[in-house]
């Protein structure tokens, strides 16, 4: 489905995740973060950039993997993106949430 955000139209799924990463830009990231009551700092962006790089490499993400990435430890990841950090950060980064087969 289409939605308007940060002055552009993007495609998202039922849960608001971007379905086409090519449509993402930093203004969209900021706007999606604001919807999650987050103001993005340079530390947030370092983590988001890491997630996007892994996504481009088709590499599945998990909390443990992010903790071992050297980019951020798990404690800080929870501080940056509270409650369900991987889900929240994925949505802001414009990448799909981690999923199972069904």
């Amino acid at each position, binding site marked *: 489905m289409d939605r308007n955000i940060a002055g552009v139209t993007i495609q998202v*799924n*039922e*849960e608001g995740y971007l379905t086409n990463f090519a449509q993402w830009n930093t203004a969209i990231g900021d706007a999606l973060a604001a919807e999650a009551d987050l103001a993005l700092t340079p530390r947030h962006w370092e983590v988001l950039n890491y997630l996007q790089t892994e996504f481009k490499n*088709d*590499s*599945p993400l*998990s*909390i*443990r*993997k992010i903790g*071992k990435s050297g980019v951020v430890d*798990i*404690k800080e*990841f*929870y501080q940056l993106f*509270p*409650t*369900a950090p*991987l*889900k929240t950060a994925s949505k802001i980064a414009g990448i799909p*949430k*981690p*999923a*199972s*087969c*069904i």
Partner: protein
Amino acid sequence: MKRILILGAGTAGTMMANHLHKELSPNQWEIDIIDEQEEHYYQPGYLFLPFDIYEPEDIIKPIRDFIPHGVNLLIEKIDRIVPREQYVQMENGDRLRYDILIIATGTKIAPEETEGMQGEEWKKSVFDFYTFNGSLDLRNKLREWQGGRLVVHVTEMPIKCPVAPLEFAFLADSYFKNKHIRDKVEITYVTPLSGAFTKPKATTALQHLLDEKHIHVETDFAIERVDNENKMIVDYGGREIPFDLLVTVPTNKGDDLIARSGLGDDLNFVPTDKGTLQSKAWQNIFVLGDATNIAASKAVSVAHFEAEILTENIKRFIAGEPLNAEFDGHANCFVETGNGKALLIDFNYTHEPVEGTFPLPGVGPLRLLKESRLNHMGKLAFRWIYWNMLLKGTHIPFVSTHMQEAGKEFA
């Protein structure tokens, strides 16, 4: 004489041995397959063993029975692959040169990745069912267990057969009903994902199963440790879930030999082209089955479809032709839902499981994403198909390598 070496005589490696034996000239190509154990385990059976539905003898057969004459089977331990010099170093000191290498070394559980998982309670009240021994130990535990809080838990993705832990929860509901102790058992399903189901169509079609079976779901749980003293799992956000019996799917990793060879990612899975199945690092190394890092399910059906495509690509590689980027991530799996019923799901990289008919569009006889007794019969019949057709590389009638869009309700 040139040589193809296949590492691993599990599902994927055995299928490749059978395919390549049929396709390649024995005057030009020697085919060797290496495994460290003598037995082939029917891993889908690990789901049924704990509930006394299968016996150990249903799921173990000698590897040798499934390797064609003319293919050499070596039961030896592999130390590492040396891709630059095109040989495999064996633990016994032998060096096996290869022209083409096929990696089919699968995936293993790594409970040591989670603090406390192998603590005091391991094998007392903490079990896995992704190994033969784990599944058997759990069977013995369940036979005597009088009830309490059963927690079925997934540590992190990716895992082999992502739907198996959910099937375990469904079968547990039936098992305890049949033992007339269902009222004494609380079943909680704990997942690092956003739900027991993560795809919209499956969620709509299947959410009712969890309600009917009174399975409580805890989502977005990223486990930090198992607290053995207080018998609970704790996540990085501080959430605590108590258990009397924890059935966990530990972190899944590729074989250590991949790490020793410097060929893996951080979970020892081999970076692989998702269409051609060629390794990203070396042109003459191909990878299939659970050992790859591709975003297809780690499942028998995936290995089966991959084996058909990889066989074509190896013939092309030998002939110096460009590879076909044909693998579409196709998977086709029966999902046990308990009470003698099952679902069938069919999906690929781009299409989520939807409702429809299978394998014949509009006819079936199997219905997709709907519970039925016929699907359960299909799941049980699958064991026969596995031993007698799949491992031997026989094409399954009506089931195509690529996912078919006809007969499915995508709208």
